């Protein structure tokens, strides 16, 4: 039987904050990553766990102050079904739909994906491309960290041990187009080999505010500034796509691992980039 560390289930945020201030707790949200990690086979299991599942303050999806705000405990199923996500950020719903299958999507949460900080976390490139920010809370109050500053190293984040991710803010102004693409072994249940999100604002036939973000090609989810500069001020034409695909394949630093090889990841990343530009350009 797996290890069963003691668990405490706070009902309110202040209760959760005071627990986190008193001792070191490992948070559990939907559990889809955590329960696999604490079997004792992957290092020492945590001494104690704080169960976030009853913190309804972390639920809900709404639009406020010019941003789509997604509660950290929103499950992938809730994100897929939310009309506001479909209207304002369909790429996030597409990313959620590629994670696991129904069983995982019914429990796994956006906040969990963020804090688990896997370089293969499928929603994370969407956060980077959309200039999202992550709202952290603790006994000292709240603070907002941009997605670009959040993943600081392999499975390391800007979250302090006494903080929780409360919600994620996706700015809606200026309106941009955001696209998502994942390549894995099969459509369901696969951890990605490469995952990409692209954001841009159309401005008189050329692209502005271009963001290209990737997962599974580095120690953290990353943006690729050289590739972005190729696309900034450009139009999605074939010559641009050829150039961007070549640049992105050189810019990333993937590794060989159990899911894929560095060579394959470079090749397929270039192909995804090319395909996205072709789809956007309509040629």
């Amino acid at each position, binding site marked *: *039987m*797996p*290890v*069963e*560390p*003691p*668990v405490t*289930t706070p009902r309110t945020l202040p209760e959760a904050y005071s627990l986190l201030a008193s001792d070191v707790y490992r948070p*559990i949200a*939907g*559990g*889809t990553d955590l*329960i*696999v990690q604490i*079997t004792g086979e992957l290092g020492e299991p945590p001494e104690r*766990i704080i*169960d976030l*599942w009853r913190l309804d303050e972390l639920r809900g999806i709404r639009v406020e102050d010019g941003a789509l705000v997604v509660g950290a405990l929103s499950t992938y*199923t809730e994100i897929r079904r939310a009309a506001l996500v479909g209207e304002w950020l369909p790429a996030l719903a597409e990313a959620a739909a590629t994670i*696991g*299958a*129904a*069983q*995982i999507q*019914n*429990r796994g949460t956006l906040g969990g994906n963020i804090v688990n900080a896997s370089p293969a976390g499928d929603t994370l490139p969407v956060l980077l491309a959309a200039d999202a920010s992550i709202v952290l809370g603790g006994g000292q109050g709240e603070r907002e960290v941009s997605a670009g500053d959040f993943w600081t190293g392999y499975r390391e984040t800007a979250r302090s041990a006494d903080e929780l991710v409360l919600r994620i803010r996706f700015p809606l102004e200026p309106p941009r187009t955001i696209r998502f693409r994942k*390549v894995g*072994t*099969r*459509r*369901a*249940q696969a951890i990605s*080999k490469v995952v990409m999100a692209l954001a841009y604002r159309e401005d008189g036939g050329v692209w502005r505010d271009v963001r290209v973000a990737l997962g599974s090609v580095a120690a953290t989810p990353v943006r690729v500034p050289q590739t972005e500069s190729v696309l900034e001020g450009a139009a999605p034409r074939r010559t641009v796509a050829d150039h961007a695909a070549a640049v992105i394949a050189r810019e990333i630093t993937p590794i060989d691992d159990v899911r894929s090889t560095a060579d*394959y990841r470079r090749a*397929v990343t270039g*192909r*995804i980039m090319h*395909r996205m530009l072709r789809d956007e350009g309509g040629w």
Partner: protein
Amino acid sequence: MVQGYRFTLNGEAVELEVPGMRRLLDALREDLGLTGTKEGCGEGECGACSVLVDGAVVDACLVPVCQIEGSDVRTVEGMADPATGALSPLQQSFLDLGGAQCGICTPGMLMAARAFLDNGGEPTDGAIREAIAGNLCRCTGYTKIIEAIAVAADEGREGDPVAAVYGNLDLGTSTDDYIDLIRGPAELPPEPSTKDLSAGGPGSD
């Protein structure tokens, strides 16, 4: 840290004094003696331990008991009619159409299918495949499982359930005809298209 957790299990109130981080799977099998829910991989890949929590299909190996306090849990043991023992339409359909070979995946397949049908899923080939995408059958009996779900979905509906999945293949007009057909020596129906499954993979780019 042991405390009492209350929930309903197949419609009956249960109180369980176990550590809160006990996996629902272990609570069901070891503490409650309900071994219909199987453990395959123990890490959310195979779906053998699928159960329903408040109507949503989940992997019982990934849900701690502390998170089901107050919830409605359904397992394969609760599918048949408790009074008569009559199988549910899904179970009967799996039985009739050979939707089980070794049987390890079957309870999980049934629960995933039940969640899909209870939530109003349209029983098309693609939708059924997505509904059971989190459930692995290593006998690779998927075709018959998909057929069984389609036939169960048709219970009480008009028309040909097989046609609802495969289009009009002129296989007869009733479930019984179809069951006779695939049980008998007659020609088997064509395989469903596998196009949906291969699309989107690395090779398609």
